[in-house]
Every structure is written in structure tokens, then in C-alpha cells.
């Protein structure tokens, strides 16, 4: 099984603050990894480092086979990142936005409808401007934008935030399906009781490093 994420003694700095302080972690393809930890533990920074959005100042970091110290932009097209923010164009209609993201990711336009249905955004909302949606609905649109691109590596930061119970369960199903189709999923969440079910591995972070790992490979 090939390694999707390989970090060794990784230190990453954002501005003047060390957000990762010597992180060691290896994630193989197909795994579903849950990241836990207090606020400030470095979960978001780790996800962003995997996405190549923050640079690694020391250590070894490889994502999807690419060396992040040489070119951290290389793996991005294969990665789906869902951060705290939704990355939505609030003036566009729901369908227009997801369509744009789909085309940008190289997916067919028809995939848009499928993704929206799968995520559970009702058709009535497809021609509504994103700005008038509730927080939960917007989160679902953001998830749909990620799903439509069919990424190999899913990096999710509190994906369940703002979602109601039904939508959360639906998201868990989506993640399980994606994992079965070969995608690797790393998600940070505070919702341990609900989400530990789908995760094959739980990692606890603190102070910018890995503190506990339920299934080190």
C-alpha cells in the first residue's frame, strides 16, 4: 500500500509562530484518519501543510509522492481541501458555483447535479444565491464542491460543523464510500463519538506534534 502522506520531523512556521514542531506521521492510501486535539494543537496547520498551503521549514514531507520541500504546489490538483471557511462565491447561485468548481477541477458539468443530490442539497435551492443560505446548507454546498472534483486525498477541517444530524450521517456515508473507492481521507473533528465509527485510525495532536496514534503504520 503506497504512502499518501509521509511526514518526518516536520517543522512548519506561519508568520512568527511554529505551528508544527516536529511532526511524524505516515498515512497510507485508503485510510480514513480522524485528527483530534484541542484548539491550537496544529490540526488545521497539518491539513494545510498536506495541501501545500504552508511551507515546511525543516524535516521531510511527501504528499502523494511529491516532495513538499521541492514543490508544494504539485499535489494540489489531486487534493480536496475543506477548511473552516467554505470557499463559496456568495453572489452565485448554488448550481453555478458548484458547476464552476466542477469545471475547474476537470469534471463534467453533469457531475454537478449528481454531487448536489448526493450531498443532499434540495433542487429548490439550486437557483438560490449562496449568500441567502443557512450555515448548514452552505457547508453542504462546500462539500459538494469538493466531492465533484473526485480528489485522491480528502483534507477536511471540521466538516460536520453546522450540519444537522441527518446531514452528518450522510457525510459519514459519503466519506465511507469515497474511501472504498480508493480515496484517502484525513479529517479533523471535535465530534468524536459520532465520527469514530468511520475512522480506521485516530490521531491525537498537541503542541504541533502527534501525541497519540491508534494505528501507526
Amino acid at each position, binding site marked *: 500500500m503506497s504512502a499518501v502522506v509521509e511526514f518526518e520531523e516536520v517543522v512548519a512556521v506561519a508568520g512568527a509562530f511554529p505551528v508544527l514542531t516536529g511532526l511524524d506521521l505516515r498515512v497510507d492510501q485508503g485510510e480514513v484518519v480522524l485528527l483530534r486535539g484541542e484548539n491550537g494543537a496544529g490540526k488545521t496547520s497539518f491539513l494545510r501543510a498536506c495541501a501545500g498551503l504552508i511551507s515546511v521549514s525543516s524535516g521531510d514531507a511527501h504528499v502523494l509522492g511529491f516532495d513538499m520541500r521541492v514543490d508544494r504546489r504539485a499535489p494540489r490538483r489531486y487534493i480536496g481541501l475543506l477548511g473552516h471557511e467554505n*470557499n463559496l462565491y456568495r453572489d452565485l447561485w448554488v448550481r453555478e458555483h458548484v458547476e*464552476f468548481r466542477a*469545471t475547474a477541477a*476537470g469534471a463534467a458539468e453533469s457531475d454537478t447535479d449528481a454531487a448536489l443530490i448526493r450531498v443532499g442539497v434540495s433542487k429548490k435551492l439550486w437557483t438560490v444565491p449562496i449568500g441567502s443560505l443557512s450555515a448548514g446548507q452552505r457547508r453542504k454546498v462546500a462539500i459538494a464542491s469538493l466531492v465533484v472534483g473526485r480528489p485522491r486525498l480528502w483534507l477536511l477541517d471540521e466538516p460536520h460543523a453546522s450540519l444537522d444530524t441527518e446531514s452528518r450521517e450522510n457525510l459519514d456515508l459519503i466519506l465511507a464510500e469515497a474511501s472504498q473507492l480508493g480515496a484517502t481521507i484525513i479529517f479533523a473533528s471535535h465530534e468524536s463519538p459520532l465520527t469514530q465509527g468511520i475512522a480506521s485510525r485516530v490521531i491525537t495532536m498537541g503542541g504541533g506534534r502527534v501525541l497519540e496514534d491508534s494505528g501507526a503504520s
Partner: protein
Amino acid sequence: MLAETLLVARKDLRVEWRAKIALGQVAPLALLILVVLAFALDANSSLLELGAGGLYWVAVLYGGTLLIQRSFDVETDDGNMDAFRMSAIGAPSLFLGKSLALFVQIGLLELVLGSGIAVLYNVRVADWWLLLVAAAAGTVAFSVCGVLWGAMSAGLRVRATLLPLLLVPVLVPILLAGSRAFETALGVRADAGWTWASLMLVIAAVHTAIGFGAFGFLLEEG
């Protein structure tokens, strides 16, 4: 790359179409600037006729800067820059796409302003061909510079005052060239209007080349 450019441009224009900021807010404001300038010059019709070329471009400068800010506000809102960085779309296509969308928006603004000076300042067009070419050349230069410098100040705090400070010195040659070209086209002065128009194209070309090279670099954080 052409497909990606058009994709980005269409997205920007569609956002604008839904939000109606350019048409709804900026154009009326720029038109108001023309009126205000007339007040400042005491509605002296001969002065206004002489100065119409320059005053037009000042209003374009003002409205255009607002449109450029808006174009990047859309991208920095809700963390959209991250989506751009993660996207498979190449940086040159992003650069060209946003420039194209801005070109259309500023062009529409200029249509409004052009009608404005025709009516308010009572101008007569001597050379339509020169007028349109000069307007197009200036708009291209403006758009390309705007996207380049907008990216440079995007995502940094205090952007709202930084962008005009950085942008205006860069736009001065365009303002200069555009005003002189318009004055020739409006028959106010017998100048080398075509040379001024080509200067604006040179500015546009230089900044496009730089944008191609530097845009990806500018998008990155750290």
C-alpha cells in the same frame, strides 16, 4: 489555457451579474464624479469641453479602482484564495481570466461615462476610430495593471487604502496617454493621438508579460 481563462472570466462576470455592483453602484458614482467635476470647474462650458478627455479618464480611474478592489474582495472573501491556490487552473489563466472580466466591466463603465461627457460636457467627436481604439487600449492596460497590483495587495490588511496608493502612480501614464488621445479624438487638440494610444498598448503588453510570470508567485502565501 484559453478554456480556463474563459471559465474564470465567465465566473467573474456572472458574480458581477448577480451582485450588480458595477452597474448598480460604481457607474452611478463615477457619473456623479463627472457632475462634481463640473461643479468644481464652475460649469464653465469651454473649460469642460477642453478638459473632457482628462476628466473622463479621472472618473474611469476612480471607478476602475473600485472595480478592481471589488474583483479581489470577491476572491479574499470566505477564503476563496485557498480554492484558487488548490485549483488545477494555472496562474496565467487566472490572471488573464480576471483581466478579461475586468476589461468588460470597465468597458461598460466607460460606455456610461462616455455618454456622460457627451451629454454633460457637450463634446463632439472628431475621430471615432481613434476614440474607440484609445478607449480600448486604455481599458486593456488598466485591467491588466489592476489585476497585477490587486493581487499584490490582496489578502493583506489595510488593503482598501493600500491598493489605490500602489495603483495610482502606475496608472498615471495611462491617464496621461488616455487624456491626450481623447483630446485629439474630440478635436480639442491636434496631437499625436495614435502615438498615445500605442503607448497604452505598450504598457498593457509589459504588464501582461509580468503578470504571466509573477501571478502564480503572488498568489502564494508564505
